[in-house]
């Protein structure tokens, strides 16, 4: 049975434990700016909303990728970025209409939620149950496109992106 992240903003207190856990497990640092799940803060209403990739059926990011660097994990259903194949062209970042693929200056590639291989740390870290990892009802299963179910392609020779001075909002310079 495939599982998915269930996000319930009404339970979120804005404690950012999920962001800390995500950045630490995936990037090796406690730095919310590097988290793949993001808690949005609606100051004026005192509300919070955790938000990340829904592993959507349409997989806009995956289809837009010119080099097959985003693939479906057959076990989890997650759309995963293959670091060794991604060239950092950023087309997936504009193709995902939910804004949940981000370009990372550090790696010169993109990062997105991969469900931590089936054991998402954000869900484990959330103290209030605003993020839970739950079974998908079986009607959701037929959605995966047959042609996307190929194995992980082997990388050709891939070198690190060139170092450069990048200017953007948000990320540390």
């Amino acid at each position, binding site marked *: 049975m495939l599982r998915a992240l269930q996000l319930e903003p009404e339970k979120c207190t804005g404690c950012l434990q999920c962001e800390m856990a995500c950045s630490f497990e995936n990037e090796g640092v406690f730095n919310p700016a590097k988290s793949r799940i993001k808690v*949005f803060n609606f100051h004026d209403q005192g509300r919070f909303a955790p938000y990340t990739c829904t*592993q959507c059926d349409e997989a806009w990011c995956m289809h837009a990728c*010119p080099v097959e660097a985003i693939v479906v994990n057959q076990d989890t259903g997650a759309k995963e970025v293959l670091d060794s194949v991604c060239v950092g062209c*950023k087309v997936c970042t*504009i193709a995902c209409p939910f*804004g949940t693929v*981000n370009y990372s200056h550090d790696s010169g590639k993109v990062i997105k939620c991969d469900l931590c291989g089936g054991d998402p740390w954000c869900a484990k870290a959330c103290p209030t149950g605003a993020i839970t990892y739950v079974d998908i009802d079986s009607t959701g299963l037929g959605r995966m496109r047959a042609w996307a179910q190929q194995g992980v392609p082997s990388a050709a*020779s891939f070198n690190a992106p060139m170092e450069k001075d990048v200017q*953007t909002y948000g990320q540390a310079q």
Partner: protein
Amino acid sequence: MRHIVIGAGPAGVVAVEHLRAFDPEGQITLIGDEPEPPYSRMAIPYYLINQIDERGTHLRKDAGHFDALGVEVLQARVTAVDTAAKTLSLAAGDSAAFDKLLIATGSSALTPMIPGVESDGVYRCWTLADARNIVRLAQPGKSVVLIGAGFIGCIILEALAASGADLTVVEVENRMVPRMLNDTAGGLIKKWCEDHGVKVLTSTKVESIDQGSGDRPLNVVCDSGEAIAADMVITATGVSANTGFLNDSGIDVDQGVVVDDYLNTSADDVYAAGDVAQGKDFSTGGFNVQAIQPTAVEHGRIAARNMVQGNHHAHRGSVNMNVLDTLGLISSSFAMWMGVDGGDSAEVSDPGRFRYVNLQFQDDRLVGASTLGLTDHVGVLRGLIESKVRLDGWKEKLKQDPTRLMEAYIARTQALGHNAYVR
């Protein structure tokens, strides 16, 4: 059912994969004329800087992919299509019969009408074959002139600058990427390039490419009177759809192959997809050639479905969108970035830090956007535009702070806690 797809770029490849998914029994042939496995032009800039090798440009990395799908891949050039007999002719003299045909022949870089443009050392940067030549000649100490600072020109600019060659960019319009960004943003990209050692001549036209004197074989003469001694010249002055082989087919061709909402051409059973197709634009509802990768893929999926299942799946229109990385300055533009009649806009500009966001509204909906330096959650601009979500009070908030896009989207859609699989 015999399906033939002409053109082995992203549109053609995605189409054959979907044809197979929808028609497990049918016979599927993919015909492409380039002497390479199907590859992605978009990956060329990364090949130029040696971040990937040629195999890294291939659309499908698994060599047995098409065999496993039962798709026959032919390397051949299609020279004519007979829509009545439902056959096509190949350059070698053979012919092939189809029940359904997809034209996905893409576009080619135009050669500008400049005296001397046929000289040795003048290249386009459109195919892997072009890229091999450029890699050979773009070396430290060489002088390279890039004619055209449109989207494709700017995409290869970074790779050319990274080669260590002295780079001069010549653009006839008053700014860089004139069809993607406004004066402010295009001007900032120019300044950024100049700060990074690239010489940029805007509002300048190349009059001729002459033989050089001295040790540089070429001399690029501009209408400003300036002349640049060059080892290599690259032209990136626009593209045109590859429709020549359809001249006698009776299939309607305008800017590209004319299609309806189902990507069906004027001939029954013949469809078109990708750069060659004059497809529906999401914003205007009109038909134009967008010539971008995401649109090619979208066309490929929809055309394949209609080829197998009949014309039931209408194309809602593709959002025209681009993202560009110019020497580390990342820009993007979406849909009606230039604004619409009777619309209004919001802008934040911080030229000192090369940051810029411009949002275009119609009533209380977002209809277009352009940005510099915005990479986090940038795709939500597409979401806001394509979902046509009413911004309600968020329009005012966005006008005060256009960077609060994600909050606006989350607050205004039911996306709060909504997951694709669970509610």
